[in-house]
């Protein structure tokens, strides 16, 4: 987990939350691609989780989700609940696996969009919305996943560009193997593990 050392990172995350929801609501949701609209909000939460870790990922997910519920006059807490999970698990993926491959945001973007779509369906059913499971609903979720997958890399790149300058250090250089190796990562240099080795002859 990345320690929050100064106010710049939280400030940027707050501004990012605000801008994401406003732009999504005012522009992106009104652009129809193959009959559906892209939804960048879960992608931004995923990107923040991947870049900053589970704690900030979950908090940002809560913030964006709550803001979406407020702005769209929806049932408060529904989107927040889903986005907390997205932010947290994206952050945990980074902390446990530290995926370095450039296409990870693409795969994760598809996964979090599918999770948001099906999760919303499950919560709505639990809340008692009288709705048949239509083929179109499934089709729309699948198309939304495809559209979101296409834009996940640019969204991730944009989020990284916004918050990386204020991150304590480059997350790709960090290897977090503490849970599996007790801090003895095979990737760390012996001199770091054992201290300075004397090279006397």
């Amino acid at each position, binding site marked *: 987990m990345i320690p929050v050392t100064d106010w710049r990172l939280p400030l940027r995350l707050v501004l990012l939350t605000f801008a994401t929801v406003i732009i999504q609501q*005012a522009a*992106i949701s*009104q652009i129809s691609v193959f009959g559906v609209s892209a*939804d960048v909000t879960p992608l931004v939460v995923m990107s923040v989780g991947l870049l900053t870790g589970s704690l900030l990922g979950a908090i940002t997910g809560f913030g964006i989700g709550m803001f979406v519920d407020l702005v*769209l*006059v929806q049932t408060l807490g*529904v989107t927040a609940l889903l986005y907390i999970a997205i932010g947290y698990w994206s952050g945990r993926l980074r902390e446990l696996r530290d995926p370095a491959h450039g296409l990870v945001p693409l795969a994760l973007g598809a996964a979090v969009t599918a999770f948001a779509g099906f999760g919303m369906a499950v919560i709505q059913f639990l809340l008692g919305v009288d709705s048949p499971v239509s083929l179109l609903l499934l089709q729309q979720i699948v198309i939304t996943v495809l559209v979101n997958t296409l834009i996940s890399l640019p969204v991730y790149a944009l989020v990284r560009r916004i918050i990386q300058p204020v991150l304590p250090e480059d997350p790709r250089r960090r290897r977090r193997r*503490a849970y599996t190796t007790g801090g003895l990562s095979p990737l760390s240099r012996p001199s770091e593990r054992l201290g300075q080795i004397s090279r006397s002859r």
Partner: protein
Amino acid sequence: MQDKTVRRRRLVLALLVGVSLILLTAYFGESTTSPLHSVQRGIVEVLSPIQEGASKALKPVRDVAGWFSDTFHAKSQRDQLQKENQSLRAQLAQAQTAQAENVQLTKQLKLDQSGAISAYKPVAAHVIGRDPTLWYATIEVDKGSQDGVRKDDPVTGDGALVGEVSTVAANVSFVTLITDHSFAVTAQVNDGGSGDTGVLVPAVGDPNHLILQYLNRRAPISAGQQVVTAGFKSGQLDSLFPAAIPIGQVSNANQNTLLNAGTVQVDPAADLRHLDAVQILTDPQPGTQRAQVGAP
């Protein structure tokens, strides 16, 4: 140190999930006049100028994307519209004859013309936001209580009914579309004289279709017939929606389904995913109370 970090992370996660669940439970069980709803409306009111500004600023982006989308679908739309055009020419000729006859008969009978849409003082509004999910079929428009908009006002667009106002702030309103699970309206089928009425409800999760139910099971309904608002009147109670606003047309009138369940499938006339402007009917018939059919 590691344990402390893990504990803190779990504590924050539990706190966030707990707050979400508490808000969800509290909000879901409360009425629309509750404090949480009021706070939500207040925040919408504060944010509405920003959203409106963002919507205007980002209009070129939407237009460019819309241009690509329109171009992509232009050929298939042209072929479909040419077929529709041929059919509509024939209908127009019949309608013009009927209209002329109607004017003459109306004058002879001195019928009241107050049921026309213009009597409801329509207010034009632009769509500045919409819900991207299928679960909440709502749009946000740039007219609010300062423009005379009130909760439950009917909303038309593309020449057909598109929904009703569900939340009103000073400068913006939220319109619940006819495809929302909470929506229902009494509707009539123009089926050549008998004018069978039923209750039109959405096929939730399927924004392309509506279901007209509680019909006479032996009604002479067939695909292609127009469906309009019934606009019932019962004593002092007037329907929320004026009569004869087009809603859509019957797309599937399976006789077995009609006989057994009393339902037919209706396609909305308005393209609900591409609404740019709507009309809010702000002034219902004076001196009467308004009633609405609740979703079953």
